[in-house]
């Protein structure tokens, strides 16, 4: 047995200029981050205050940082595919098949597992505990472990660019192609271990979110007073807990096939690949709802705040969310209608799929009715929401079409499908997260994001989206398969060129996001959020300071109605300082979760390269870390009441100096909490 398993110098990407430059960019990117931190002298602060933090807000922010970095990487992949297909008519383009195939695989994997999932976990982490009036999530330590496991998975995908190759089996990794016979290299193993390690993190996140919502709500915050975002998180968390194990099992079985010569999914030897496909989509379909439900939650918050009106049909929206959650487990077969199941089986799953359109349609109408007789203010988050509403129904339409098995027989595996799911996932999921990012950014950092650049970014994203994906519907109707490295049908090319232009406009949208962040940080003093309530908000996260104190709420709020904070403002109790404070207990910082994640990364690397001794050692080390932590009898610290008092005094001083609400200057402003007249002394 080799000391380094199958790792040799040949694993470095010097075989191709494109691969080598990809590796170069990755390495340079990493080095420049290191250099920047050194230059800023920020190592101590980085480890002391961020990487070791168990604070749900900081964990949330770190998740979002991972997501934004991976969004760029995922987009570079997309741009490469788009440019390849724009030129590859009767020619090989600039990407050979082996490389193109890695790119669609890494694009899909990154976008789903390492862009959307961290973005989702980040926003949930940051917002949900504050919305329910809690000081933290139920399991802060596990929360940090989840973060670092996700980061470990992302790290594995990134390092595959430098050492070895990535999978060519697509983001779905179907056997037998992904089996050892057809793809013996390390690519599929990178995919497997990245997905497995981050998947365990996601399962733990799900548990954490669910328990937090069940156990950590402020007094008076009954389930039917939960803000809609929290409701969607509640359902998404249940889906995470039930769906992710299916993925884990599928991946473990595939890993056994690949490394220990099992035959779960091989063609010969008694295996059956159909089982993998079933298991994968048993997770995969709920997964799309895990991604989109919280985005629906964001839209619900945003549309209410910027319509200056309570959400229309709250109960309907809650019921619709739950219905979607349940139904999402009954439709997975629509991903393989073409496998030869009987007409009755196909009809059943087709009908179940179309049924999901009902609660989804209800939601769309309820959001529109929230706008009805409101006073709309078109801040960037609201623009993303309106863009979503209009665009999303087109994706819903194509989804219902695909749910009809006979239509799917034609459209399956074509770019029509690609257009459909990007049509759900970009306006639905990504716009939701971007809206959330711009909506809650002031809460996280104490200043607002630049609106001009935010608006510009929105227009680039939406125009780019239509240009990039509407042609794919047409191409799908013309029969163009997905995952085509080159083609010989001239009629496809014009559409692919338009799609490439669309991708370029999306790129401008991403650039605008970067500029927005830069400009906002530079001009932060002119856009400070002093009150903590920059949008005239409705739910409890707007009650805290921006950025919130480590404990969020010095005194847990008492909730008496839906839109708890709005109600407190209306009753004039939102900003009444309590006479005295109590000491607050919070978890101490610890580097153990980071160590667990880092070790898991090395473990994954060892499994990919068959460095068995290292795999055993790292696994044992992780076990040791967990046991070591369990002996720590004193994981918390207590902030004395005097410190709390000092922090809160400063906050109330600030509040006194400034008007409580920074929306009042807006031309469309409809006034403070109404219809109730302002009670005496509310300010």
């Amino acid at each position, binding site marked *: 047995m080799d000391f380094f398993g199958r790792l040799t110098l040949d694993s470095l990407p010097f075989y191709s200029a494109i691969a080598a430059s990809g590796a170069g960019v990755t390495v340079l990117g990493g080095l420049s981050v290191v250099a920047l931190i050194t230059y800023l002298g920020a190592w101590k602060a980085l480890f002391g205050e961020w990487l070791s933090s168990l604070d749900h807000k900081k964990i949330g922010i770190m998740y979002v940082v991972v997501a934004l970095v991976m969004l760029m990487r995922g987009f570079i992949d997309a741009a490469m595919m788009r440019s390849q297909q724009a030129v590859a008519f009767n020619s090989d383009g600039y990407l050979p098949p082996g490389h193109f195939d890695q790119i669609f695989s890494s694009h899909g994997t990154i976008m789903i597992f390492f862009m959307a999932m961290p973005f989702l976990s980040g926003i949930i982490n940051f917002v949900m505990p504050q919305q329910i009036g809690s000081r933290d999530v139920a399991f802060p330590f596990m929360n940090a472990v989840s973060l670092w496991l996700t980061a470990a998975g992302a790290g594995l995908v990134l390092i595959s660019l430098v050492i070895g190759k990535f999978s060519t089996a697509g983001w779905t990794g179907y056997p037998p*192609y992904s089996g050892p016979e057809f793809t013996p290299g390390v690519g599929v193993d990178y995919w497997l271990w990245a997905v497995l390690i981050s998947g365990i993190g996601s399962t733990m996140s799900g548990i954490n979110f669910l328990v937090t919502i069940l156990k950590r709500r402020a007094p008076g915050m009954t389930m039917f007073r939960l803000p809609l975002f929290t409701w969607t998180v509640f359902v998404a968390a249940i889906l995470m807990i039930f769906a992710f194990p299916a993925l884990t099992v599928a991946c473990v079985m595939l890993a056994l096939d690949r490394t220990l010569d099992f035959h779960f999914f091989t063609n010969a030897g008694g295996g059956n690949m159909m089982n993998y496909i079933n298991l994968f989509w048993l997770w995969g379909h709920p997964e799309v709802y895990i991604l989109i439900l919280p985005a629906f939650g964001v839209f619900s918050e945003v549309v209410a705040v910027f319509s200056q009106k309570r959400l229309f049909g709250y109960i309907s929206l809650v019921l619709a969310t739950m219905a979607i959650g349940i139904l999402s487990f009954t439709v997975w077969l629509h991903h393989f209608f073409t496998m030869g199941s009987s007409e009755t089986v196909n009809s059943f799953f087709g009908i179940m799929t179309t049924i999901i359109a009902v609660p989804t349609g209800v939601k769309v109408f309820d959001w529109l009715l929230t706008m009805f007789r409101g006073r709309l203010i078109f801040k960037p988050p609201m623009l993303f929401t309106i863009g979503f*509403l209009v665009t999303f129904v087109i994706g819903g339409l194509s989804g219902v079409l695909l749910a009809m098995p006979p239509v799917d027989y034609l459209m399956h595996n074509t770019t029509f499908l690609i257009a459909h799911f990007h049509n759900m996932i970009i306006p639905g999921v990504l716009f939701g997260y971007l809206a959330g990012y711009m909506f809650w950014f002031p809460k996280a950092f104490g200043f607002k994001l630049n609106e001009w650049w935010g608006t510009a970014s929105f227009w680039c994203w939406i125009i780019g989206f239509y240009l990039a994906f509407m042609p794919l519907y047409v191409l799908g109707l013309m029969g163009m398969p997905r995952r085509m490295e080159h083609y010989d049908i001239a009629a496809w090319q014009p559409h692919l060129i338009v799609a490439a232009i669309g991708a370029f406009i999306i790129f401008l949208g991403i650039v605008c996001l970067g500029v927005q962040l830069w400009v906002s940080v530079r001009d932060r003093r002119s856009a400070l959020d002093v009150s903590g309530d920059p949008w005239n908000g409705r739910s409890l996260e707007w009650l805290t300071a921006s950025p919130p104190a480590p404990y969020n709420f010095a005194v847990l709020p008492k909730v008496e109605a839906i839109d708890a904070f709005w109600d407190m403002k209306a009753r004039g109790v939102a900003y009444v300082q309590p006479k005295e404070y109590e000491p607050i207990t919070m978890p101490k910082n610890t580097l153990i979760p980071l160590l667990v994640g880092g070790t898991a990364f090395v473990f994954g690397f060892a499994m990919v390269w068959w460095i068995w001794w290292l795999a055993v050692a790292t696994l044992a080390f992780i076990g040791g870390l967990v046991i070591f932590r369990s002996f720590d009898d004193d994981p918390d610290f207590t902030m004395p009441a005097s410190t709390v008092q000092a922090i809160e005094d400063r906050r109330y001083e600030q509040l006194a100096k400034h008007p409580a609400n920074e929306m009042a200057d807006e031309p469309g402003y409809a006034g403070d909490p109404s219809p109730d007249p302002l009670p005496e002394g509310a300010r």
Partner: protein
Amino acid sequence: MLTSADLNPKGPISLAERQLLFDAFFIMMIVIVPVFVMAALFTWRYRGTNRKARYDPGFVYYWPVEILVWGAPAAIIVWLGFHLWDGTHKLDPYDPIDKSVEPLEVQVVAQDWKWLFIYPEQSIAVVNELVFPTGKPLSLKITSDTVMNSFVIPALGGQIYAMAGMQTKLHLLADENGEYWGRNVQYSGYGFADQQFHAISVSDEDFENWVQKAKDAGKMLDKEGYEALAKPSSKLPVTYYSSVTPGLFDSIIYKYTKGNAHGYAMQCTTPELAQASQASGGETGSRAE
């Protein structure tokens, strides 16, 4: 290459599949159009600066509206559900198109990265070309001798997976003479992009001539020849085989199932099992046989 596509069906199956797509599309407009109209109207009318518009922050629940927003989509889905059920049963790829007509049977094998068509009655085989008489139903039995593939001829209909050790079925029919393209649409490795074939529907007479042409090719497809052909290769030119070892197709499936018939019997039967059940007059339980 060829231009025909789903927008331009050349057979009853793809025509019916497309019709279902159009029907569903138009019925869905009942909810889609209102969304567009409402979004545009509300965005304009209730913009914050328009002080003339009514502002009613108390409008958060109204039961007739609730009934409408649940009822209208539900009604459409009921309508769709019936059509879906109906269409799925009518257009089941396993069903013969016209039971009264004897179809032309072709056995299809997906290989890396090409398609082998075996005509058992004619005892010929062709690589990357599927020729058949216009107006005569085509009955395809499909398997794979490699990873999972998916077989489609967009102008005529499809698609269905091709899986090693299993057999799926597809029935197609062309209404007019023509040349269409068909291909694998399930990603299968390096040669995937070029894994396509010509599907040509011709008059009966031309079909006979074509069979004769294949018969004159003078090449045998026996076990060894097959093994050589099955090795990965792409952009193979059309190749004719004047005769085929009988039972070749079944032996390709059998290669993957031997010794495991029991473990498999739920999903997929070996040819022996299939024969046994046919002999006893029964249908095999599963469809990916």
